[in-house]
Every structure is written in structure tokens, then in C-alpha cells.
């Protein structure tokens, strides 16, 4: 049974449909990468799963329970954590406080301040610094650490390499690989197809709010993904996606 299931989900921004009838399932321990162009609805889908957007239709089922109407902070407690696009650390709080605020209402488990600092050694010397004073890569590490503090069963990562230096991206992905090796369940949004293909077990491609292609990472060709990504050959893409 999949740990997370999305069934015919619709999400609108005002009148604009951003996610249209999306269904997908994430099995425990797998890494599913969502790829697609800007505005394809990836971020909206992630935020809807985390509870930051209210869907206009469809269901979200987590561990067999319908959580569509559950508020975001309770989903965190249930085991869903989002690392939002743009990191969104609390700028006036220190790194320590950013971690603690996430941990204080959540389940206890493997992740605590010590284990997060062990996983992200670059944060150790920055522990008492205000988050606003961190570099992009450091902030991204802190944001992932903050999400881990909630001991999630499913980790949602939205554009974790956006705006980072190549070196910082290496660092972030290195730590992700450690997480994945440790058996974490991850749903990942990534613009960089290469990166996505390298870490994911499965890839789903979104176009104009729909999932147009989905398959095991090693079964999809680069050609197929690129065509779905840009909507070059919709007939083929739809055929594979269905």
C-alpha cells in the first residue's frame, strides 16, 4: 500500500486551475521526482499535499487516512514535512531556533538537533546565527534540517537547488543521498532533469497542471522526459502517461 496517495486532485489559484485532476502514489522508501517547466503546477501540488493550499476537488490520503481537510500543522504531526521553495527560514530566528520550533510540536524519533547537525556539519558553527545571515546553501541545509526535525514519514522537497551555487547544490544533494540511503520516502521537485534522474526511483512529469508522463527512473529515456517537459509531442506523452 502506498504511504501517500493523491486522487484526482484539483487546486486553483483564484480562478486559475493550477493542478488539474492529478493522481499519484508514493510507496514507502521510494524517491519520486516531479519535473516540469515553470508554472506546470509542481509547487502548487507539493503545497497542497503539505496543507498550504486548499484543493477544490479530489482527495489526499496519507497512511490510509483521508487528510484532505486536515490543517497543515496537523499533517506535520502526522508525518508530512515540506521544505518550501525559497527555503523560507524564519529570518529573525537563529538556526537553533529554526530547528527547535519545528521539533517542538512533532513526533520524537531519530531526528533531533544533534542528529541534524551531524547530517549537516556546515550548520555546526552557524548554530547561534540568525538565519537571515546565512548563505543560500547554508539556508537550504537549515531548511532541510528543520523539516527533518519533525521526523517525517514523507519529506517533500521543493526546488532545493534553486538559486544555489554549484558547490552548494553538490552539498545538498550529497546529504539527500544519505537520507535516501537511510530509507526515507521523498517527493522531490527538481528543474534539473539530470539531478532528478540521478536520485529518483521514479519520475513524474507535469505540464499545465497535469501529470503527462510517469515511470521508473531507469525505464524512461531522456528523449521521452524532454518531450513531456516541453509538451513537444503530446500524443506520445499522453500515451505513456496513461
Amino acid at each position, binding site marked *: 500500500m502506498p504511504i501517500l496517495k493523491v486522487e484526482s486532485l484539483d487546486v486553483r489559484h*483564484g*480562478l*486559475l*486551475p493550477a493542478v488539474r485532476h492529478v493522481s499519484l502514489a508514493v510507496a514507502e522508501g521510494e524517491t519520486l521526482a516531479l519535473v516540469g517547466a515553470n508554472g506546470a503546477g509542481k509547487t502548487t501540488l507539493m503545497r497542497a499535499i503539505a496543507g498550504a493550499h486548499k484543493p477544490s476537488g479530489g482527495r489526499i490520503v496519507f497512511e490510509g487516512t483521508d487528510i484532505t481537510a486536515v490543517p497543515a500543522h496537523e499533517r506535520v504531526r502526522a508525518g508530512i514535512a515540506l521544505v518550501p521553495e525559497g527555503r523560507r527560514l524564519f529570518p529573525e530566528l537563529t538556526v537553533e531556533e529554526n530547528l527547535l520550533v519545528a521539533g517542538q510540536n512533532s513526533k520524537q524519533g531519530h531526528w533531533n538537533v544533534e542528529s541534524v547537525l551531524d547530517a549537516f556539519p556546515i550548520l555546526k558553527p552557524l548554530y547561534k546565527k540568525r538565519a537571515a545571515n546565512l548563505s543560500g546553501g547554508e539556508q537550504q541545509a537549515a531548511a532541510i534540517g528543520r523539516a527533518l526535525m519533525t521526523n517525517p514519514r514523507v519529506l517533500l522537497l521543493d526546488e532545493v537547488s534553486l538559486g544555489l551555487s554549484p558547490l552548494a547544490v553538490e552539498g545538498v544533494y550529497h546529504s539527500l543521498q544519505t537520507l535516501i540511503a537511510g530509507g526515507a520516502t521523498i517527493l522531490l521537485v527538481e528543474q534539473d532533469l539530470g539531478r532528478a534522474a540521478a536520485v529518483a526511483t521514479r519520475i513524474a512529469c507535469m505540464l499545465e497542471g497535469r501529470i503527462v508522463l510517469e515511470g521508473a527512473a531507469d525505464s524512461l529515456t531522456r528523449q521521452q522526459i524532454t518531450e513531456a517537459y516541453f509538451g513537444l509531442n503530446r500524443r506520445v506523452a499522453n500515451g505513456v502517461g496513461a
Partner: protein
Amino acid sequence: MSGPQGGTERLSALSIQRWTPLSRAFTGGALALAAALIFVPVLLSANVTQKLTSLFILIMIAVMWNALAGYGGLVSVGQQAYIGIGAYGTVLLAHQGLEPYAAMVLAVVLSGLVSVPASYLLLRMKGGQFAIASWVFAEVFAIIVTLRVDLGAGTGISLIELNRYGAADRQAFTYWLTLAATTITLGLIFVLLRSRLGSSLQAIRDDEDAAASVGVKVMAGKRILYIIASTGCGAAGAMTLANTLFIVPSSIFSVKWTAFMIFMVLVGGLGTFEGPIIGAVILFGIQDLFADEGGWYLVGLGMTAILFALLLPRGLWGTVGERFGIQLMPVGYRVRGLGRTGRSPTGVAPADEAAVSRAEV
């Protein structure tokens, strides 16, 4: 509303319209009504004349407060400053020997003059900070008046200079002056909303930062509104003095004026041209029926205002006008070809029309 995916193809089918047959008829009717109202003191009793004068004053302050909050996004809790300045300015000038009605007109100008430096001070603040700062400003004038024995200090003063006219003449002059001031005020707001500035102002209210980023002169727009609203309230103050002949600082500078303004605008429809007028008529009726109830009457007004703010934030007129697509006074634009009629500067426009109205900015 159709989905936006159809929007681009259909944009060419849209046309912008200001006048509709209904708004044409109504605007004409309003002008005819204003003309007919001139004859009230001649044809009807003194009691009716005085009551209508009070109603016009309520309309004036409601429209002025709506100009500030509904178009400028400025919640003032201190417009009573100008009501007081209009009233006490009249007393001061009349004491200098000026003909009392001329003194009223000059006092209105004085209110406008005071509001210019005040705007530089108060408009530095936004939101709630502007609200309380404007209140402090009113308090300063109230205290200054209570410190001046020649203005009757805290016990109040009457405009004895008006006694040179007989009661009936006085009533009629005051009425005509108030009618003129109300007509000018409404006309000014009407013209303002139809001007380029009107579109800018709506942009400011919808999103001040966005408006500034596309080149709308936010501060200038707010300042113009503040000066107009303050001058209008000054007129209301001078007319209140002429209508009641006696004023006390604790009531002419009372924050209750603001409570009335908020009530009228919220009930009638914030950000609509017609709403405040309807709100004023409703408050006028309520005052006639319940003013003797004292505290309970104000409890009722406060509760009603809260309920409207929470449950019907567009007020009676905003809600009705939107549902039926009616616009009696053509201050906005109608976008023909859309499913529903758009009214841009008079309400929170749906996304498509907002784009149209901003294109003008």
C-alpha cells in the same frame, strides 16, 4: 466568469463603457433632485428643513470618510478634527466681525489649509498607526479649544452673530448652504473618480506597493484625498454649528463622528459611490427612532458595523450592485462582453477587470 483560458481570444470582443441608460437616467435624476431640493425651505416646514440639513451633513461626512477609506485605504479616526475646526473656525471669524455665512465659507477653506501640513505629518503612517495618529491630531485641537476661554472653553459657545437674521431666513440660508456644499462635495468626488486619478486611487487601495511599482504616485493620490476629505468635514462642522447654533468641544470633536462615518460607510458599501449616501439615509432614520436610547443605541450601531464588516464587507449597495450589475452613478467602467458587469473603481473588481482598469493608470 469564464475561465481565463478563453480570456485572450475574447479580449478583442470586449469594449469599455462608462454610461449605461440606467446611469444616464439616474445621474440626470440626481441633478434634477438637487435642483428640486432648492425649494424645500419655501414649500415645506422649518422642521423638515432642519432635518434635511442634518441628513445632508451626514451624507457629506459619510462620502468624505468613504473617499479616504474606500478609495485611499486610509482609516481615519480623526476626521472630527476638521468638523471641529470648521465649527470653531466659523465662531472665531464671526467674532472678528465677519458676516457669519461668509465666516462659514472661510472656515471651510481654513480646514483645507490645516489639512495640508497635517497630511505631511500623518500620511507617514499607514494602517492602524495612521488611524490613531489622526485621532491624536483631533485631540490636540479639542484640548486647545478647551484651553481658550474666548472660545467658551469646555462649556461651549453659540454663534450669536447669526441672530441678526430671522429664524426662518436663518434656517433657509443654512439649508441652502448645506445643500450647495453637499452637491459640490458629491460632484467633486464624482469627477475625481472618473479622472485618471480615480483609477490610480483604486490601484492604491487594491495594492499600494504594486501601484507604486507601476508608477502610480501613491503619496500624491492619498494627499489629495486627505485634503478633500478634510475640507468636506470642515464644511460639515460649519453647517452643524449653523444648524444647531451651539457647540461644545466634547461633542464637536467627539470620536462618535467617526463611529457614525464608519457605520454609514460599512452599511452602505465601502468603496462604492452610492453606498455612503444610502448609509447616511439609514443612520438618519435610526437616529430619529433610537437616539433616545443612549448607550444601547451606540451598542447597536457598533454591533451592526462589526457584523457588516465581517459578513457583508461590501455593504448593502456593494452587494446589491454587484449581484444585479447596477451602477447608478457612472464612476467606474463597464466591461461589455464579460459574463458579469464589471465596475472598476467602485469595488473589488474580479481579476479581468482590474487589469482593464489598471491599463489606464
